[in-house]
């Protein structure tokens, strides 16, 4: 009789325990993005920080994704109030400069911040090699399913989101992804290169 009771109790308890145990293995901030593999949301944003030669763009110029078909685009969402953005700033700036003249564009997109704060922050950080764009009302950020900053999107030559990186992006990840996207033919969708071990490959909430 006792064995029967124990079996019935186990029948109810074990699935619930397993469910909770499975839940404990999941990071609640680890939220898969549906964007990689899909067509990148279009945007037309104005330059507020010009960058530096040879990547210089005029302040007020409108940058349209549609004008960059056939080329790789790296979009880095950042803000002056974001501490993690300081960690990746010099890396991104240097890597972007090293790709000057190649079919890849680097753009920063200011997220929930005033352009004047962004400009001051760039000056404080010693400049930025690539231009930064203003995103009023965070409409482009929402279009890209942004959770926080910094987040970096790599768009392939066919205008698709190939890879999304959450948190400060290491130089090795940028080089690996950009090189693989540049090497991929423009006519067929480029497969994103797997991220190196330790690199964040999924978006995390509240970044």
């Amino acid at each position, binding site marked *: 009789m006792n064995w029967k009771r124990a079996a019935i109790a186990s029948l*109810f308890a074990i699935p619930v325990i397993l*469910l909770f145990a499975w839940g404990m293995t999941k990071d609640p901030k680890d*939220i*898969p*993005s*549906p*964007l990689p593999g899909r067509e990148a*949301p279009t945007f037309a944003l104005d330059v507020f920080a010009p960058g530096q030669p040879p990547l210089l763009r005029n302040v007020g110029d409108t940058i349209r994704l549609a004008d960059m078909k056939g080329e790789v685009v790296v979009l880095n969402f950042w803000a002056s109030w974001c501490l993690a953005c300081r960690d990746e700033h010099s890396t991104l700036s240097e890597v972007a400069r090293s790709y000057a003249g190649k079919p890849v564009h680097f753009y920063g997109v200011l997220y*929930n911040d005033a352009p004047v704060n962004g400009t001051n922050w760039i000056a404080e950080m010693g400049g930025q090699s690539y231009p930064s764009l203003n995103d009023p*009302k*965070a*409409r482009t*950020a*929402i*279009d*890209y*399913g*942004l*959770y*926080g900053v910094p987040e970096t999107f790599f768009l392939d030559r066919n205008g698709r989101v190939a890879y999304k990186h959450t948190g400060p992006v290491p130089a090795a990840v940028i080089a690996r992804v950009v090189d693989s996207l540049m090497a991929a033919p423009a006519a067929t969708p480029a497969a994103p290169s797997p991220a190196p071990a330790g690199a964040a490959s999924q978006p995390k*909430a*509240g970044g």
Partner: protein
Amino acid sequence: MRRTMFTWSLIAAAASLAFAQNAPSAPPSDPKQAGAISPEQIQKEGKSAAERSALNMRTANDTALEAMTTAVASELRCPVCQGLSLQASPSELAQQMRGLVKDQLAEGKSPDEVKAYFVSKYGEWILLSPKPQGFNLLAYLLPVLLVVGGGAFIWVLVRKWSAPPVTESNPSSTDSAV
């Protein structure tokens, strides 16, 4: 007698007051008389009535749009909060997303289309109530199963506890009473 006269004088005073009040509303024989409504006035009043009506309609539309925005924003999760909807969250991103919900509804998109837009950007995670399909069904069925199972368990226990003790020498209390 004096009381009757006083009553009649009150009635007469009330009647004359009522007549005096009604008198100006009677149509004047001369249109140029004071109080007459000119065609310009009619046109002006008609115009203001139309404006008032348009304003009322706009207010009603705004109220309906706001209510629909609130309903949709209450079903979408704030990405930078813990379990809060866009409607409940004071965060800047949530408010911007709520603004986008309102704009899309104002453009003529249906609530389902607006929710589908956010799902396409953030995945199904953005829905506070997951779609009742596949693995998500557990979230809907498990509480019902637990309530039914728990209820049945309690019912069995209560029946067992409230049953009179049965012994061989004393099978029932009624027998012993007889």
